[in-house]
């Protein structure tokens, strides 16, 4: 029998701590698959966040260290500067990256740090039980917006990919979603591209994944994928937000 799809050797053979149908596990797999394809699984260094993926180092077969809440970009900056030949990445949720860690991520991008951030936008604080995140949609219920988020009280949800793309040091920024096989295939290409641009050493790279949190959205896992498609993607449009390597090509052609 010819293998068509087998368990990724980049994933540890342990049970993840994620809820049934939580798409964190898909994002993990895309990252380690890409590192294996690049022959860099044993060479890469990751930085874990605080959040449901705090234990990502137990699930991905990659050397990883833990950072304080939101500080992964600062830790990764140091690691990548000391190890300029290694692929370095952070893996961060939206509470971690866009609330407490917003300062770190913007400054790391602005400095053009040569690591990649994998940003999991599930529109909520998962680990702590479903509080509102900066990415929670208008009208979305959470334990801290029980009648739904309002613009008056909480402002508009932050579109992080567009925000980071506007920072000069950012080289490649793309938003993808994990709600369908087609989108997962595209997400894999985005991860490959991000590591390739990181290797070119031309600046900061980030992939934003629209991901599900069925548990705290109060939906079944399948309904949660429908919520991504119907509610999240219209507000968080998918696609490449910045690619300075493409701009270089265009300039050369002109």
């Amino acid at each position, binding site marked *: *029998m*010819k*293998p*068509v*799809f*087998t*368990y*990724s050797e980049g*994933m540890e053979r342990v*049970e*993840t701590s*994620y*809820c*049934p*149908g*939580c*798409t*964190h*596990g*898909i994002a993990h*797999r895309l990252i380690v698959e890409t590192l294996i394809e690049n022959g860099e699984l044993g060479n890469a260094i990751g930085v874990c966040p605080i959040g449901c993926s705090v234990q990502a180092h137990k699930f991905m077969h990659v050397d990883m260290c833990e950072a304080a809440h939101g500080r992964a970009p600062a830790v990764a900056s140091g690691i990548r500067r000391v190890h300029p030949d290694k692929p370095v990445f952070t893996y961060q949720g939206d509470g971690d990256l866009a609330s407490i860690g917003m300062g770190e991520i913007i400054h790391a991008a602005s400095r053009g740090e040569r690591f990649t951030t994998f940003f999991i936008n599930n529109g909520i604080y998962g680990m702590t039980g479903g509080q509102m995140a900066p990415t929670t949609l208008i009208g979305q219920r959470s334990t801290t917006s029980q009648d739904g988020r309002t613009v008056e009280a909480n402002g508009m949800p932050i579109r992080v990919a567009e925000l980071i793309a506007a920072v000069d040091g950012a080289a490649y920024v793309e938003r993808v979603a994990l709600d*369908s*096989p087609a989108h*997962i*295939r595209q997400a894999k290409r985005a991860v490959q591209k991000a590591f390739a641009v990181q290797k070119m050493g031309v600046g900061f790279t980030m992939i934003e994944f629209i991901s599900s949190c*069925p548990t705290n959205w109060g939906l*079944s*896992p*399948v309904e949660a*994928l429908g919520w991504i498609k119907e509610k999240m993607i219209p507000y968080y449009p998918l696609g490449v937000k910045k690619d300075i390597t493409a701009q270089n090509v265009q300039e050369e052609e002109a």
Partner: protein
Amino acid sequence: MTKKFRVELIKDRCKGCELCTSVCSRHLLKMDTHLNHKGYASVTIENMDACIGCINCALICPDGAIEIFQLEEGDKE
């Protein structure tokens, strides 16, 4: 010869989320009434011969519970 595939469902890894059942292009995956050791209803496949090897189910499984193989000449069906 039309290609034939084998879908391996690693029941102990399954968390019964049903994402795979929702994306199977041939609607072959169903939830089993049998519970695995974690207490989740795991997934099962009806009519394996109808599988087209699209790997949709394996791509979306967050828990690595699905593997797909293509049958080669000489393999037992």
